[in-house]
């Protein structure tokens, strides 16, 4: 008993610096933001939240955030899982391939990635239009970032590219823990590759997938630089999400109180999502 108590004490002491840092770096800004969001002209009020709810673009921003998040997360899961399965197979040059495919998008700074995608999407000499035209899939260059619907798709594609490596990396390390015997047994039973994936891989990876999806949802909602660099939220608000909108109100319009209300709203939304998701899918 005594030694266990001592161990706990040591453990606490070891994480204490982190706790202090966490408090300073997270709790302080969150509570200050909360305080700002209720402040207006020297008093505490709900005006900032009233302005948020009555903003005519509010529904559109929510809709955009939903599309952006669902589109990014679903495809980051599919691409991430696909790449992980591929890299789990043995083939020559696998290590180099892994290093390249995983680190290039992920390690590239957000702003650099955003600018690169902007140029690749260009209808005057962008490489994407060029390839599509050479493949005869389109007969004239598409204004990827200049059209309301295309712009929504374009930023999601860029984000899938930017974000899939982290999913792939997590799934790949999870795949390594699946014992080969299980696959061999399934093979002997005559299970096809798809059945093996469905009945062996997926159930075993279940908990990891659920956690990863939750994390990617939160990251995607809060991910801001890519959209900011590529479209700034345009055209005509088509790619404006909760965070690009909040950023503009705070830092472009210097309306810090209303901006704080938007940030707090986003925070509460994510908190609610995390609680519901954890309770229903991960099972507390």
């Amino acid at each position, binding site marked *: 008993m005594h030694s266990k108590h001592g161990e706990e004490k040591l453990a606490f002491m070891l994480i204490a610096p982190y706790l202090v840092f966490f408090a300073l770096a997270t709790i302080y800004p969150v509570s200050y933001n909360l305080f700002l969001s209720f402040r207006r002209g020297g008093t505490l009020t709900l005006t900032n939240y009233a302005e948020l709810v009555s903003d005519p673009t509010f529904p559109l921003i929510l809709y955009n955030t939903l599309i952006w998040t669902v589109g990014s997360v679903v495809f980051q899961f599919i691409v991430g899982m696909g790449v992980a399965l591929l890299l789990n197979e043995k083939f020559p040059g696998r290590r180099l391939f892994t290093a390249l495919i995983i680190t290039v998008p992920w390690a590239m700074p957000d702003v650099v990635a955003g600018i690169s995608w902007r140029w690749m999407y260009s209808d005057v000499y962008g490489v994407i239009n060029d390839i599509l035209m050479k493949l005869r899939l389109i007969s004239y260059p598409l204004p990827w970032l*200049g059209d309301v619907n295309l712009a929504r798709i374009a930023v999601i594609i860029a984000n899938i590219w930017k974000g899939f490596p982290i999913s792939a990396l997590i799934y790949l390390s999870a795949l390594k823990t699946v014992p080969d015997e299980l696959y061999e047994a399934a093979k002997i039973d005559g299970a096809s590759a798809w059945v093996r994936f469905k009945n062996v891989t997926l159930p075993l990876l279940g908990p990891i997938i659920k956690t990863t999806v939750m994390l990617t949802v939160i990251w995607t909602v809060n991910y801001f630089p890519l959209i900011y660099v590529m479209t700034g939220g345009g055209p005509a608000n088509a790619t404006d999400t909760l965070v690009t909108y909040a950023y503009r109100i705070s830092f472009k319009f210097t309306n810090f109180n209303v901006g704080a209300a938007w940030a707090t709203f986003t925070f509460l939304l994510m908190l609610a999502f995390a609680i519901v998701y954890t309770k229903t899918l991960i099972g507390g």
Partner: protein
Amino acid sequence: MRKIFLKVVACSLLVVLLLLAVPSINAQRPKILVYIGGHGGPGYEEWWRQLVTEFEQKYGIDVEYQIIGFEVYWDKLVAAFEAGTPPDVALADLGGWVPAFADKGWLEPLEKYLATWEGAKQIWPNLWEAVTYKGVRYGVPWYCDCRVLLYHKELFKKAGLDPNKPPRTWDELLECAKKLTDPKKGIYGYGVSGALSEITTLGYMIFLYGAGGRLLTPDYKKAAFNSPEGLEALKFYTELYTKYHVSPPGTPSYTEDDYRVMMAHGKIAMAIGGPWSFPLIEMENPAIKGKYATAAHPYKVHPATVYGGWAWVIAKASKHKDAAWKWIAFMDSYDVWKRWALKWKGPMPARIDVVFDVPFFLEDPLWKPIITMFPHAVARPPIPQWPQVSHVIQLMVQNVLTGKMTPEQALSWAAKEINKILAGGS
């Protein structure tokens, strides 16, 4: 033994005291922190160091300075002011920054310094509007520029147009742009700025004022562009893309910055630009040197343009305001400006005397239209709500470009939004 020990202790104490005293003697020399936004680049680091050293020796004031990239400058400045730790002196963009900061109570009024400053009467008179808030001046214009038409002479020749006769009116602009456009080769006649950016607001303003309209009422209390002139300008500006297709398909995602790059590679024949474009377009493609030119932007009723530039401001929270003012007077002095202009051939000084004493500005064919247009240049309304107002104008243009609204609908929607913003106080 003990005596020696005491002596050693006494001596070391003395040394420590002396060391402590040195900084306190030094502290009597004021030290100012200067934020320089967006004026780095090759060679400039050394140039700023020379100027700072010269200033320090001349006035006995220490200067700590930071050169900050334009992309992050606004955020950094706002964060510093908001946190209560602003620089003593900073550069602020003439595009509405000064009134926005003054409204927050962040800036020191400069009238008492300006009253006795020799340079005050040398500043281009139209520049003062951009640094005035509620009748009080909070900034000193430092350099300025205005937007003009940038065009590709070789593309003009290839299209059978005279490269020395750029379009002067809207009709000529459209006619030239149609002749220059060749979508099969990916060449477009005129680049309409349509992205979510201040540049789009400026593009619309140049057409609006060129049609004889104005953005806001003279007291800045209401929208004034919801007029026949304003509609005509919005229609013509957007139809260049939606109807005549002389601007590329990606127009709602482009600004003049993108068009400058395209022009460097012979893909855009005409776009709005300014003196900052010259080094950038030549950096993009050195072969374009001498193959592009500038002219007054085409107009409907009379030539018009919008100016930009930078002003020096002093933080209200500064403890060394007099020292900060000396820095401004030094940087905006005839002597420093003349050396600057002769060495760097730009930007355009906010001082008229320097512009006319340095022969370069009126002799250089690229600079001449800028200097001659400058007296016609208007300010962006100096109101703290400018970023919101500008954002609505951008959305108005985007809504028409993307077909979500007709010009009539977009114009009345934008006027209503802007009137709401202007009535909202703060």
